[in-house]
């Protein structure tokens, strides 16, 4: 064989090797993070950790019950705000492909998806915190709802676009009015795709910290009042991780592990659902 041909083949092989090495090197940081957080967090988690609120500096023990409850409330309220609006505007975009408003709405959803989370925090501060006169969990939920919206809208639109037109035509031929066609035929057919979009959006906002800094603000005590400041898992991690106390670091490691497991389980189960139902997101 010619030397230059040999060289070309060798070059091709070595570039293939390099590509494989680079591609699999991306997995390393994730494994390192997972491994470290499991190692640091697993010893901190026990029943006591889950049902108690943090102790003041200097006392060992204490838990993250306030952050767990707070995160749950903030996420549920955000989902209640965002899901109906998101699904309805997704339906609008899927049903009106050509209208001018749909063009602008689609552009807006694209823009919303890229807005840095800290900017949404600023805006929620002026929309909710200033008028209501103080930091509140509700304002945090509004900020998170704004972050959820683009994902819900996009997944709804993409799912409904994939449904065959014949479904809708058959329903119209039976004399069904528009709203019944949508609510009884189109949405039930696309429900798996819509649901996985909702789950994905919840997984995304569950770990968001920046929008909560100036809205939900954090609270060292257990609170269930959504008009008052409330603690949440990411806020607790941020505040305690940047503190100089080892006891607080321990709390933050345990909280990180719980948050990480929650987010990854949501993501992986969404993947499994989309694979099972052959939904494209």
């Amino acid at each position: 064989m010619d030397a230059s041909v040999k060289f070309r083949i060798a070059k091709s092989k070595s570039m293939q090797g390099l590509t494989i090495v680079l591609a699999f090197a991306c997995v390393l940081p994730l494994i390192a993070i997972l491994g470290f957080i499991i190692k640091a967090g697993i010893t901190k988690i026990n029943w006591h950790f889950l049902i108690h609120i943090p102790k003041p500096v200097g006392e060992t023990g204490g838990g993250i019950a306030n952050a767990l409850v707070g995160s749950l409330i903030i996420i549920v309220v955000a989902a209640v705000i965002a899901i109906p609006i998101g699904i309805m505007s997704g339906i609008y975009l899927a049903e009106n492909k050509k209208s001018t408003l749909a063009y602008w709405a689609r552009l807006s959803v694209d823009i919303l998806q890229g807005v840095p989370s800290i900017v949404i925090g600023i805006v929620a501060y002026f929309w909710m915190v200033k008028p209501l006169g103080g930091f509140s969990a509700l304002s945090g939920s509004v900020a998170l709802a704004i972050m959820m919206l683009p994902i819900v809208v996009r997944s709804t639109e993409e799912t409904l676009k994939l449904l065959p037109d014949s479904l809708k035509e058959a329903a119209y031929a039976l004399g069904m009015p528009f709203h019944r066609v949508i609510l009884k035929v189109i949405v039930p057919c696309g429900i798996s795709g819509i649901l996985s979009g909702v789950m994905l959006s919840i997984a995304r906002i569950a770990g968001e910290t920046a929008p909560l800094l100036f809205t939900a603000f954090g609270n060292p005590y257990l609170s269930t009042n959504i008009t008052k400041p409330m603690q949440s898992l990411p806020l607790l991690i941020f505040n305690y991780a940047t503190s100089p106390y080892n006891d607080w670091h321990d709390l933050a490691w345990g909280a990180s592990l719980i948050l990480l497991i929650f987010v990854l389980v949501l993501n992986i189960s969404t993947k499994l659902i989309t694979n099972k139902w052959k939904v494209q997101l």
Partner: protein
Amino acid sequence: MDSTFNRDLVAPSEVAQGVIQSTQKLKGLQAKKRLNRSFRQIRTENVFKRTLVIMGLIMVILVFGILLTLIVQSIPSIKALGLGYLWGKTWDPVQDIYGAFPFLLGTLITSFLALLISIPFSMGVAIFLGEYYPNGWLSNILKNVVELIAAVPSVIYGFWGLAVLVPIVRSFEPKIGVPPIGVGIFTSSLILAVMIIPYAGSLGRSMIQMVPSPLKEGAYALGATRWEVIRRVILPYTKSGLFAGILLSLGRALGETMAVTMVIGNTSIIPKNIFAPGNTMASVIANEFTEADKSVYLSALIELGLVLFLVTLVINLIGKRVISRFTNE
């Protein structure tokens, strides 16, 4: 039906008469009901359609609302500080001196350094999954794992960086002749690089998979090796798509807040080298927003938010436009 006509033909018994009358009544009622129902349905249909339009409008209103809020709230700082604010070199709120240049520089350096570090890896993922092994369980796992990188909350990246990466960086900093601080621009770029790999990677993969196979087969038939096909056919063909993926990950890097805030060191001095601590636009907002006691101070921070919003908006729109043009071709 006419009742007199009926009476002429047959002599109806009283029972039959009653039956006829009641059925007539019933039919009238039914017709009325049916009419009512279709009216109601038409009304519901219109209400439903109108609600959908309003929901579509909400998206547009949200974006305009965000833009408007940012502009209105940053007017005090624009009035007081003018355009020079953006390249003022000192940031000292205590003495009412506001200059955003340290943060602009910090944001640009961290983002581009992160981009530089992440490009080889994200392109490796894209080429590996798009061309070498598009199918199979191994590639499936790699694909999902890379997407999970984007799912990990940024505050957890920050905490991990603080606990693991900062000591590592601190330990090798004296060897290259810089003070061992650990936190700084270089550390935050490393964390950012990991965080933005999935964006360019998975987009690049789908772009590379769309290259028509006749093009590749033609090159193979001419005797090209696998790498030459990638280098001379696939990469030129997907150039714009790969560029868009890199743009989108740049957009993410610019706006990333928490991880950067935790490891960049938070000083408002212009960084002397890439190992020095600094601040980005997002991190200075996160740190100082709740402490801002003067209206100009607060407004100056919001103006940073406005700049951040506009820059990410432009970058994202260009990226999306390039992608949609590429996929429609």
